[in-house]
């Protein structure tokens, strides 16, 4: 319908995700500019609609196959909703569900898609998205003309608060498509992230290491600083992939989102996926020998001093 903006809701069966509220906040503004409503597509348990007070309409598809996130089931439900609701713009996150569903919908629904969006503007029916490419080195301003479009928005682009309204949205039910009864994939099991380790999301101060650390021995060097400060080490993806720190310490898109009072980044270049997980820290201090590293664009303080000199010096000064 005209200028409606539809948000794909992500949830774990009990809780609507923060990313959904971020998108919903943006959707409200965009819908206002486009002269439409903010709608949320909610797949699975319908009672979650009560958490979507910020929406004008909740479009619900409920079916046993949608109880847990399953790419094929969600895709079928989304296809049905798009056919039924014809929104002007669909918003989804760049997390797993967004990566699964956005580009598929672009083909099935024949709509242009803007990936890795960090800014959206709408005026006079025209939508312009700003998207990151090449590891954030270049931004592209993309026009999304016509009657329909999709934007995959980078997490943390919008505040979640704007999407958390207390209204009572209209709930529209869409019949589950028949395809949900003959899916070609099934969920075998769910593995929670390994527990028992420290929780980096509750720490006030984090010491974090990235690819620039080069070896496991050097992780131990930084661990000494962490021990001196009594804080846990966190890391960017390459360090976890190398097996130098457990998955529970990974900060970023495929890891955890952290918001400490201070974040010390050693040897982290600042790929967009990592920045997404830590950019909200109150104070970011980055150490990287490459003065052009993107981490310096989000850090409050930076230095190009060699971390192998700096870390022992800091350990000495902050040891207690």
């Amino acid at each position: 319908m005209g200028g409606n903006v539809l948000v794909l809701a992500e949830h774990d069966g009990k809780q609507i995700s923060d990313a959904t509220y971020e998108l919903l906040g943006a959707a409200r503004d965009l819908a206002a500019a486009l002269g439409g409503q903010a709608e949320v597509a909610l797949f699975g348990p319908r009672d979650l609609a009560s958490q979507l007070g910020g929406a004008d309409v909740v479009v619900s598809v409920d079916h046993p196959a949608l109880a847990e996130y399953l790419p094929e089931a969600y895709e079928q439900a989304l296809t049905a909703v798009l056919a039924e609701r014809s929104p002007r713009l669909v918003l989804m996150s760049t997390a797993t569900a967004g990566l699964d569903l956005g580009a598929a919908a672009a083909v099935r629904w024949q709509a242009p898609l803007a990936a890795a969006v960090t800014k959206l503007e709408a005026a006079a029916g025209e939508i312009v998205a700003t998207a990151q490419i090449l590891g954030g080195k270049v931004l592209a301003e993309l026009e999304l003309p016509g009657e329909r479009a999709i934007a995959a928005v980078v997490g943390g682009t919008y505040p979640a608060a704007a999407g958390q309204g207390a209204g009572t949205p209209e709930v529209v039910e869409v019949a589950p498509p028949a395809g949900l009864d003959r899916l070609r994939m099934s969920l075998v099991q769910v593995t929670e992230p390994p527990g028992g380790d420290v929780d980096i999301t509750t720490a006030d101060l984090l010491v974090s290491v990235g690819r620039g650390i080069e070896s496991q021995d050097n992780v131990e060097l930084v661990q000494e600083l962490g021990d001196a400060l009594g804080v846990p080490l966190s890391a960017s993806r390459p360090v976890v992939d190398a097996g130098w720190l457990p998955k529970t310490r990974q900060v970023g898109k495929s890891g955890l989102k952290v918001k400490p009072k201070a974040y010390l980044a050693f040897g982290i270049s600042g790929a967009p996926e990592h920045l997404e997980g830590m950019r909200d820290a109150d104070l970011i201090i980055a150490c990287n020998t490459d003065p052009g590293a993107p981490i310096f664009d989000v850090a409050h303080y930076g230095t190009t001093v060699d971390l192998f000199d700096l870390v022992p010096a800091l350990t000495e000064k902050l040891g207690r």
Partner: protein
Amino acid sequence: MRIVVLMKAVPDLVEEIELTADETGIDREFLKFVVSEWDAQALEEALLIKDAAGADVVAVGLASDPDIDQALYTALAKGADSAVKVTGGEETMLTGDRAALLAGYLAAEPADLVMTGVQAADDIDGQLPPMLAAHLGQPHVSVVVAVEAANGGVTVRQEFAGGLVHELAVQLPAVIGVQAARQAPRYAPITRIRQAMQAGGLREVTAAAATAAPAPTVRRMFRPEQASHAQMLTGSADDVATAIADLLRDRGLVKG
């Protein structure tokens, strides 16, 4: 099982990226291209399936990609059984166009399993695996960190934020977007790559593109503003350490 691994050549992010004169694209002329790191992960995972259960692994690239021969020969050196260069399309970084052409190729030479990187650094209009799967009408899973052959299909591990993992049983044919292989991509010794080059063996296949999804229009490209650049601390390691210690003390994050 015939596994097709799709390889894309992307700009080497180590190099300075230049924009075209009209600032609507990347100046590709003097740019160095390398295989997309996620595609390298997909190839590794495919080779792991081959090592464990046996498979016919075919590396496929677009003939219009810069330096794609090098990428395909490297794949052969690592253990791919054959390599195909798909012709019939213009040079393009748009995923929509690439998916449409590759869908044409896969219609002519179907695969049991298509594996490729979950994304590429220069994706503007979306990621290849879901687009391709939509063209082919096949199931697809993205952000996958393990694929294993099981019961005539595959079992995949799909990763979510925070490290939550879903294990899915997927029927074939299917398209998988790989985030990371179970082990770091293997090294291809230069001698083996050269041997593969001497042996030749890149097969060219002309494909008829399917109808691509509409693409967004690039109005302009630009570099991110450095307005919020960090305040740089300079001097010796000791000076910098003192400054950082003071910053932390001021906020009461450390004692003393």
